[in-house]
């Protein structure tokens, strides 16, 4: 729900991810984190909700 709402408001898909990983699934944990960081790196810095105080 939150993922769809964020995309609806203009956040790039993939910037917010949710995964269910149990304690014993170490491998899945590492792959998920790797995928996420690559995805976010490709998206570049987040422009939305930037603080405007200088």
């Amino acid at each position, binding site marked *: *729900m*939150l993922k*769809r709402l964020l995309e*609806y*408001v*203009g956040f790039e898909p993939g910037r917010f991810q949710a*995964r269910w990983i149990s304690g014993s699934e170490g491998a899945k944990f590492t792959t998920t984190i790797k995928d996420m960081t690559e995805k976010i790196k490709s998206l570049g810095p987040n422009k939305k909700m930037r603080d405007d105080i200088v």
Partner: protein
Amino acid sequence: MDVIQQLREQAKKLLEEKKVDLVIGFGQGTELARTTPVFIDSPEGVSALTWGPFCANNLAKYLTDYKNAEGNVAVVVKGCDARSVIRLLDDNQISRDKVVVIGVPCPGQLEWQKVAAEVKPGASLKETADNGESFSVKTDAGDYSFNKKDYMLHRCLVCENPNPVIADITIGKELPVKTYEERFAEVSELEQKSTEDKSAYWDKQFSRCLRCYACRNVCSVCTCQICVFDQMLPMWVSKRTNLSENTMFHITRAFHVAGRCVDCGECDRVCPMDIPLRKLNQKIHKDLGDLFDSPTPGSKPGIPSALGEFSPGDPEEFM
């Protein structure tokens, strides 16, 4: 006997028989095309009650103010407001035996600014009538007719159920329930747009937000004791308005009422800056349907709040 007469009779009876100590209804406002909530605690006071195409407020909101007051309360509700009553009951915010619900099937509500622009200023209202495709409004300075397509609140054009789903007393006859082929047209149209367009659209809207919290304070299902936006210790959010805090406020507000918002459209109507908040809430309603095929909250008693329950059949996109 027309609806207003019956409304006053029923209210008078309830008050005289001491069934309730207070009747919350609609009274004539200070503008021809406006009504204002009235709180009647004596049988003679029922003459203030009125009904017509200008009763847009959702009075169920006030029930939480009287939940600990001694004595019972009667409240006049339309189709959408009745859903709020059900949601408040399911959330245990109010106790059923302390509330008498007076349901009035609703032919739709007009946008008062649009009507006021047409009517001669200073005229006073005589009576109104629903003629199916339009409302006739008789005033002491001439009669007017307002077709529903142009003058009605948008939320009423796609009204899900004009008949209150909960009512101890029903006044007026049942109205046909319309069905619409594409209820979430606006939402889907915005969904198709690119991320940049969506972001630009909402940034433009939220940049106007004053953070006056009218949308939160008018919402009947926004019932937190101290809202996160009012907390001083710790001060999560300041009273400052800037795009990032406004965006956070609106996303948080919409998400906090996800699964409980009954789509009464009041937040959209009261916003002084005309921010299309219903378009935000409707997105969640659409997802509720797609993900959990749950109907609009409050449309039937006992619907579990989508985020409060889970069932094995729920989709698991995140596995």
